[in-house]
């Protein structure tokens, strides 16, 4: 792999031991994936933020690092809100360990945001190269924004953040971004036919690790977010295209219509929406956009929750939308930052959780050990307030 003279100096240890190690990691990854060079990145999103994931040894490794990140960098969601962890029943022991991990990352110059929606906080442009980790963020960046990132692991994202570059392979190369399977979504008039979390849940199972080309749908940006997050959870989809909607499908060099084609029927979508009693409701997977907070505030106006209702969001988005947040919380719902349905131990205590997310629908049974029911946002609000 080609390295410029500054990269070589870093590799030789002239910028300290930590940067040297980070360059060694990038070089090894370049070898593993046959990258020809390093490409500069504009931001990083780093996984391995939860103490539950990285454990005492991951923490020790972080504490021994001595360098700061070179590009704007944030973290994946963690197991609890940093400030109000007591409010959602997190144990003191868990909170203490989690806070040690957060401190370790803060020392490295990482911005204290723990979210799967970095694109709401850092401006991310078409064509930007990134080193992001969280699967739904990777999917959104690649597909909806037209930026370019592979799905990074914790150490590789941190290495890229500290060097400001990442090996140029995989989805960084345009030739690797062409669709491999067509998924046609049967349009219908059913109440759930426009539920993109459910469509994504089904499409991800079909696509597996192929790049899908979805046709016959016209999702909005928030619906694209739900679609991609679900496909990344039920499949391993890091990039998808929607005909006429996502940016790369509009390029003259884009190759459309893969030969392999599968149809998702309306009846398959409808069959996911089983009715069952729930004892908690959770939305914001991925974290809510300002528009989604606004919709929730309207839907909850004048209502009172009768069961636990969590709304997950990035701290930065919560702080700049306090009007909506206070309307939502007036109903009894809790707007929670830094953590999420999937990684928070707060969800583990329920029997059945209702979600509006195809991603949460895929993960909750295994990761939280409870049953899950999917519904629209309106149905979630209805279940939480009746």
């Amino acid at each position: 792999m080609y390295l410029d003279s500054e990269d070589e100096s870093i590799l030789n240890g002239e910028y300290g031991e930590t940067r040297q190690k980070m360059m060694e990691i990038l070089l090894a990854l370049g070898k593993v994936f046959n990258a020809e060079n390093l490409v500069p990145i504009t931001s990083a999103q780093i996984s391995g933020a939860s103490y539950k994931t990285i454990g005492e040894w991951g923490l020790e490794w972080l504490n021994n690092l001595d360098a700061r990140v070179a590009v704007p960098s944030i973290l994946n969601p963690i197991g609890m809100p940093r400030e109000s962890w007591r409010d959602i029943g997190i144990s003191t022991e868990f909170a203490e360990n989690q806070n040690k991990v957060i401190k370790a990352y803060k020392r490295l110059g990482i911005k204290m945001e723990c979210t799967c929606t970095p694109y709401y906080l850092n401006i991310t442009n078409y064509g930007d190269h990134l080193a992001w980790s969280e699967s739904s963020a990777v999917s959104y960046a690649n597909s909806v924004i037209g930026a370019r990132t592979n799905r990074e692991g914790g150490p590789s994202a941190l290495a890229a953040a500290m060097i400001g570059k990442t090996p140029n392979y995989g989805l960084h190369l345009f030739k690797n971004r062409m669709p491999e399977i067509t998924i046609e979504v049967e349009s219908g008039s059913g109440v759930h036919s426009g539920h993109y979390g459910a469509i994504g849940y089904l499409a991800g199972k079909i696509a597996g690790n192929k790049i899908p080309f979805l046709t016959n749908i016209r999702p909005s940006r928030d619906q694209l977010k739900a679609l991609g997050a679900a496909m990344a959870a039920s499949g391993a989809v890091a990039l998808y295209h929607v005909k006429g909607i996502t940016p790369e499908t509009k390029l003259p060099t884009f190759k459309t219509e893969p030969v392999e084609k599968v149809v998702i029927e309306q009846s398959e979508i409808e069959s996911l929406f089983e009715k069952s009693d729930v004892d908690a409701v959770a939305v914001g997977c991925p974290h809510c956009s300002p528009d989604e907070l606004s919709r929730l505030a309207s839907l909850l106006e004048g209502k009172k929750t009768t069961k636990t209702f969590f709304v997950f969001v990035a701290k930065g988005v919560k702080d700049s939308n306090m009007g909506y947040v206070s309307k939502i919380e007036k109903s009894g719902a809790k707007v929670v930052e830094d953590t999420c349905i999937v990684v928070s131990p707060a969800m583990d205590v329920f029997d059945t959780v209702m979600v509006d997310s195809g991603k949460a629908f895929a993960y909750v049974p295994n990761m939280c050990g409870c049953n899950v029911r999917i519904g629209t946002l309106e149905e979630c609000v209805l279940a939480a307030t009746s």
Partner: protein
Amino acid sequence: MSFTIQGRGISKGQGSGELLKSSEPISFLSGVDPQTGVVVENGHPLQGKSIAGKVLAFPYGKGSTVGSYVIYALKRNEKSPVAIINIDAETIIAVGAIIADIPMIDRLEKNIFDVDDGTNIIVDGDLGTAIIEQ
């Protein structure tokens, strides 16, 4: 008598010890006990054996990426392999070897799996070589 097999350097440094081969991939997270260095994965060909102090040869890593930190933990507990040889390096093992300062090479020009377990091997991660001492 010794001979050298050329491969590709992944993690720098030198290490020597007895060869321990695994025909199967290794998952470090939950597959290897970080306190003892013993392989604990049920049904694994190395189940019950310690990888501590060995030149560990296996096809590639599998399982969770958190396995990188387990390799680091093994090193800190002084139960890590002295060197790693893979058929084809992937991210988990490559990153783990680098953060734990364990020499690692892959893509050897001759099959290391023809060499007997217990043979002394010198791995050089800078040169990408394995010297077989017979």
